[in-house]
């Protein structure tokens, strides 16, 4: 019952950096309206955070919130993926099942404008299904995760997609994610298997590693980009496809262990 990864691969660390810095920028979610979130009398947020607040307050007023849900079996790394994206941290060997649904707000920058993502991290266990189903309907995007070292979690993806079809909106953005791609020797699901499944259901696909950070930002940013484009109205004319975008972005950097 542990998500601890046995291997650490330095290659991914540098990969992640290039992806992150060349294409994408994420701004810290600043506490805007309140000078002190802590209750400590003399606490002041750092200068760069304050600067962010000043410049972005007006823009923020007419922002729509994009709702994104993380789905998948228990223990595939949904919370780890979110925590890595949100804080940049990864805690090895500390599996704690999510209870119910966790909510996190995150503001990201796409093409110089801010997109607000509300990310719902769901519990993978069956007993929470009825609670989480209620939230599928409101979701704009779904990140559906499996664990490349756990065949059951991959086999269950079809069932998950069935549930999504039943409960979610028809036009919801779906991204299939094979997590824990850093676990080279324990891998039981090949990248091609994931790609094939994604093609079959016509959804975007990528492999990520919450541990090394590989593609973590890309996953969320691709979704944010798609949602932003849809919101700006050219949903039908400009057929921006997450699939194509993801393919372009991931192809830029070769992925050594996956090609073996």
């Amino acid at each position, binding site marked *: *019952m542990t998500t601890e990864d046995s291997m650490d691969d330095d290659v991914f660390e540098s990969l992640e950096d290039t992806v992150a810095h060349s294409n994408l920028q994420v701004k810290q979610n600043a506490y805007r309206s*309140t000078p*002190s*979130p*802590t*209750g*400590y*009398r003399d*606490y002041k947020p750092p200068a760069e955070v304050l600067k962010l607040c000043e410049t972005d307050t007006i823009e923020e007023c007419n922002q729509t919130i994009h709702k994104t849900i993380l789905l998948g*079996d*228990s223990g595939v790394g949904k*919370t780890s993926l*979110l*925590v890595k994206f*949100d804080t940049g941290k990864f805690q090895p060997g*500390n599996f*704690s*099942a*999510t*209870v*119910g*649904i*966790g*909510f*996190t*707000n995150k503001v990201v920058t796409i093409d110089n404008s801010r997109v607000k993502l509300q990310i719902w*991290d769901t*519990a*993978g*266990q*069956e*007993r*929470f*299904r*009825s*609670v989480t*189903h*209620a939230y599928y309907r409101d979701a704009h995007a779904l990140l559906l995760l499996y664990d490349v070292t*756990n065949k*059951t*979690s991959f*086999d*269950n993806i079809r*069932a998950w997609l*069935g*549930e999504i079809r039943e409960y979610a909106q028809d036009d919801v953005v779906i991204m299939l994610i094979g997590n824990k791609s850093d676990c080279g020797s324990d891998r039981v699901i090949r990248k091609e298997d994931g790609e094939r499944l994604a093609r079959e259901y016509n959804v975007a696909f990528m492999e990520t590693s919450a541990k090394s950070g590989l593609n973590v930002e890309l996953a969320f940013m691709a979704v944010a980009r798609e949602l932003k484009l849809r919101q700006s109205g050219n949903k039908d004319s400009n057929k921006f496809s997450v699939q194509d975008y993801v393919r372009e972005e991931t192809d830029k950097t070769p992925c050594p262990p996956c090609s073996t």
Partner: protein
Amino acid sequence: MATNIEIEPGAALESALVTTESYENFQEMSSSLEEIKNSNFIPSTTDEYLDNCNNLDNDIHLNCSITSTNSKDEEYLQDEEWLSKSKHVFVLSSAGKPIYSRYGNEDRFASYFGIMQALVSFVQADDDSIRSIHAGDTKFVFLFKEPLILVAVSKTEECTLQLTAQLNYVFNQIASTLTLSRLVKIYEQRRNYDLRRLLTGVDRFIDNLLDFSENEPAFTLSAVQCLPLTSSIRDAISAAIIQSCSKIKNVVFGILLAKNQLITLVRMKKYYIHPHDLHLIFNLVQASESFKTVESCWAPICLPRFDSSGFLYGHVSYLAEDCQACLILLTVEGDAFSSLSEAKQRIVERLRRGSCLEAINESLASREESCMEVGFPELRHYIYKSKSTAQFYQPHISAPYSINSRRLVNIYKQAHYKLHCPTRPLKLLFERTPQDAILAWDTRGFELYAVLEPLIETSSAISTVGRLLNWIKKREDKLFHLNAPTF
């Protein structure tokens, strides 16, 4: 034993907590959910939930991810480490299927579970029930609560009653996860069901609960400890919660806690929370990492003593980045998340304006004074429980127990047992050993357990206790949550 105290310290006319005797009948559970819903003419969601669950059970669309290993059952019999554990706890279905083991993988000793099941059903065949087996210094304690069997194998000094109480907590933790109604229904439909499928992740909560109940006097006393705060601050916090939730229907409880201590508890009129349910909430918050990583969390929680048949929905969040008090808003509405999120923002704003966050932080950072520091040199440590409010207070643990607090916990557990022994309960106990002296006193309004220097004279022990009660009385506003605010 004459004291000049008119009303015992920490007493109040009304309490937000249900007050109980410690070894009461554990079966008793109430059903308050329907009442709340009906009084507000809101269609019940519980049935719908149950239906959904049943659908899931009947057509299994998700494969079970529990792997079973084929290793020999006897493996653990040779495992020194496994054998040397001071307390094992097992949970199995009444059909003998393994559900939980505190140590080791329960699949590896399926035959033990078979023996436990056989023992229970053999005695049950004569319309009787097995409670415990005593072999040397090992106690085997059984609790059969349809549809589960719970067993503790203990080498600790805890008595059978205390072990049974712990097994009850484990049962309640499972009921809290699934609801008792669903648990019963599952086994009615399929006697051989593997419950672990539905309980993935719960073992972490049970593990934590067992550690918690072994070390915290709260469990033995059926009471909670409050974070010391001046009454004006505590009232301001309660008011902030009440005002912020005033327009939201059917919020049943608003609970603010930090470091396993209660800051405030606001309740719906007519409804009370049982300390056992509150302990489950404390355990949930303590054992869950996921509440800390997200801004807020929405989770179904069944409080078995409040209503074992349905879920309340909990909005769980930490107040602010640097104020690690956890706010739990419990409602019967399954779709109230967003309105409670807004309420939480308002609560935090109000608390910040009223400097309440600072007060909480200060209290959390400050160390409780030891007995020596407040002028009781012969007194090493004490626990005072106010019965009418189901709250207790204990000072900071100082020498000689700061290194071995387990010893102190055991002294209290044994004294508590002697006061509440069902066959021969005591009102007053004074016991001296070469290491320490214990004075335990059970009155109508309070229980006091004082651990003193072993050489203390009886008369000065009594006068110390008298002075101590006065001392607590003077500080009762700060140490106890004396009013029971309602929405």
